[in-house]
């Protein structure tokens, strides 16, 4: 099984640059998810790995082999498409075996592999059907089956779940993870859904405007985003961003969000942010790190009060929307502890999970 190496990969269409120099090293059997908003270049990158899109600049290696000019059929990869791309005139069995038949694999071997894949995917009874007679989820399985029988160096997934309804999507997500655990192979998976990225990936690659914003494990992306874009993209509901100013608070520093709210920074943070004293910054904090007032569990937790604007009960939690200097800020509170809209409510904020962003560079400092 392969490692895939992208070196300074670029793609230009006429005047527009879709991919602007990407470097990425994908390990053996690693599950890498490329995630980003539409037009960020993730699908183009995948299609260049597949060989369906010509490479404008840079190099792609699969294993030791430079494959820039190798046609897709000789790259030893399999791909699962967004619309499944099953051949409508072939049965499920024929769809799955098509690649093997073209490669003149022996009949018995084809049968064995198709049966094996059908067992993994639980589609043994569907082999004689045509794609039209299958549900969305079943087609998805067949599309994966077609990839599995090929036993390729790498699997490429292009938004495979986006045509399924919400419930099935969650189901198939788990399914894909299970399959990857059974069929150990390198996977490059493209999605615009950060939840899919978080749940599936060994490593997430967040892309935006044709470049990589950050690469890391799901936990790293969540806890230590390096840019404002990643901070806002990963995590749901999205992180709050509040313009702020770093001010002197005795010996230490504080973050002034508004005339009423100034939050003290710890000694360690004060040291780190000293250079930004009196500068306009952006304060980032996830909704789950602002709760109703609670017993403090560490010394970096602070309390503050604010007027509640809107409540959105989610069942397990209630999202509390407030207004700080014209910016909407969301908190995540226990349903029983929230105040009514219009009333002032006390919150506890965990300063250990805050991020300070320099608005000039949009980098987390």
């Amino acid at each position: 099984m392969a490692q895939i190496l992208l070196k300074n990969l670029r793609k230009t269409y006429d005047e527009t640059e879709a991919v602007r120099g990407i470097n990425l090293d994908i390990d053996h059997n690693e599950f890498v998810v490329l995630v980003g908003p539409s037009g960020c270049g993730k699908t183009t990158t995948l299609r260049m790995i597949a060989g369906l899109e010509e490479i404008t600049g840079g190099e792609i290696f699969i294993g030791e082999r430079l494959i820039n000019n190798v046609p897709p059929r000789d790259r030893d990869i399999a791909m699962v498409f967004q619309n499944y791309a099953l051949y409508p005139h072939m049965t499920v069995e024929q769809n799955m075996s098509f690649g093997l038949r073209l490669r003149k694999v022996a009949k018995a071997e084809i049968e064995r592999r198709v049966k094996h894949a059908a067992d993994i995917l639980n589609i043994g009874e569907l082999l004689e059907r045509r794609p039209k007679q299958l549900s969305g989820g079943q087609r998805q399985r067949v599309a994966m089956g077609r990839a599995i029988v090929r036993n390729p160096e790498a699997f490429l997934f292009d938004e495979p779940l986006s045509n399924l309804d919400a419930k099935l999507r969650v189901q198939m997500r788990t399914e894909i993870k299970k399959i990857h655990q059974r069929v150990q192979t390198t996977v490059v998976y493209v999605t615009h859904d950060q939840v899919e990225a978080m749940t599936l990936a060994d490593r997430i690659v967040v892309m935006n405007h044709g470049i990589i914003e950050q690469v890391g494990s799901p936990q790293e992306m969540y806890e230590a985003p390096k840019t404002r874009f990643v901070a806002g993209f990963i995590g749901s509901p999205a992180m709050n961003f509040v313009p702020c100013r770093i001010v002197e608070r005795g010996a230490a520093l504080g973050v002034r969000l508004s005339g009423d709210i100034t939050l003290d920074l710890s000694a360690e943070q004060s040291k780190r942010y000293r250079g930004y004293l009196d500068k306009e910054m952006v304060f980032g904090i996830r909704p789950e790190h602002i709760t109703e007032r609670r017993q403090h569990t560490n010394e970096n937790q602070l309390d503050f009060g604010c007027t509640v604007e809107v409540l959105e009960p989610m069942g397990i939690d209630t999202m509390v929307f407030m207004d700080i200097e014209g910016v909407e800020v969301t908190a995540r509170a226990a349903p029983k502890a929230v105040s009514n809209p219009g009333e002032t409510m006390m919150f506890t904020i965990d300063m250990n999970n805050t991020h300070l962003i320099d608005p000039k560079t949009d980098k987390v400092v």
Partner: protein
Amino acid sequence: MQTQQTAPEPSLRERLVTALENQRVLGYVLMAPALLLILIFIAYPFVLGVWMSLTDKIVGTSGTFIGLGNYDKLFASDIFLTAAWNTVFFTTIATIFKAVLGMWLAVLLNRKFRFANITRATVLLPFIVPTVLSTLAWLWMFDATFSVFNWTLRWLWQMEIGIFGLVLKENWGFFRGPLWLGDPSLAMASVILVNVWRGLPFFAISFLAGLQTIPPDLYDAADIDGASGWKKFWHVTLPLIKPVAIVVIVFSIVVTFADFQLVYILTRGGPNNETHLLATLAYQLGMGSGNIGQGAAVALFMLPILAFVIIFQLWYLRREGVR
């Protein structure tokens, strides 16, 4: 005093409105104009044709019923058998060329290139020009003495000779060029050529429409599955375009089988009946010789064959619709 309350008698207009509100009545009313047109312009001539083919009607006489006499005579006639064979040959060869070239043209037109839309529209030209006019132009181009074909051939001939330095430039008469419409085998080839030229756009555009319904993803998938260009065509394009292709081909068979204008203008069936088709023979017998009964019999001979073809087409369409 006794007052009797009677509802006022509904006016004609009111009764009409009530009747039209009944969907069944309205349906028949709306269908009536089309039905009338079909009866006058299709059913009546058809029935009349069948009747005439069973009589010995000659222009000016009313004709008497002679049963299948006309058909008997036809099967004994060499010209009829030649025309029947010619029609089958003409239709088969022309349809094969139109289908193969049409597919090739469609695949080319389906690529992305500059001025693609203008090119696609231009391809339709032979189909748009009235057949009679374009065929007259072909007649002129096929002319043995003054035509562009033979002029070009002569020019090439002279060039070649000029290279070897054997013949003087002004030796025009040396190479005459073929008699395109006078030579028996060339005449049939020429007629087929014009039919293919005229029918090709219909095939190409219909196939192109079919090609454009094939999702591009399938070709990506086939690329990755390991299919080369030719295999993609064979395993993906052809099976997916088959429903369109069958309908187009069957339709073309019907139209080609009954073709009249081309032959009538180019050769009138000659030389020596080598290009006579059933349609031109029917015209010649019925209109030219005034032997209307016989002409009708020739024309009707096409009916069972074309009926079979059309029934096949309808059957196929139904089956595809179910699948």
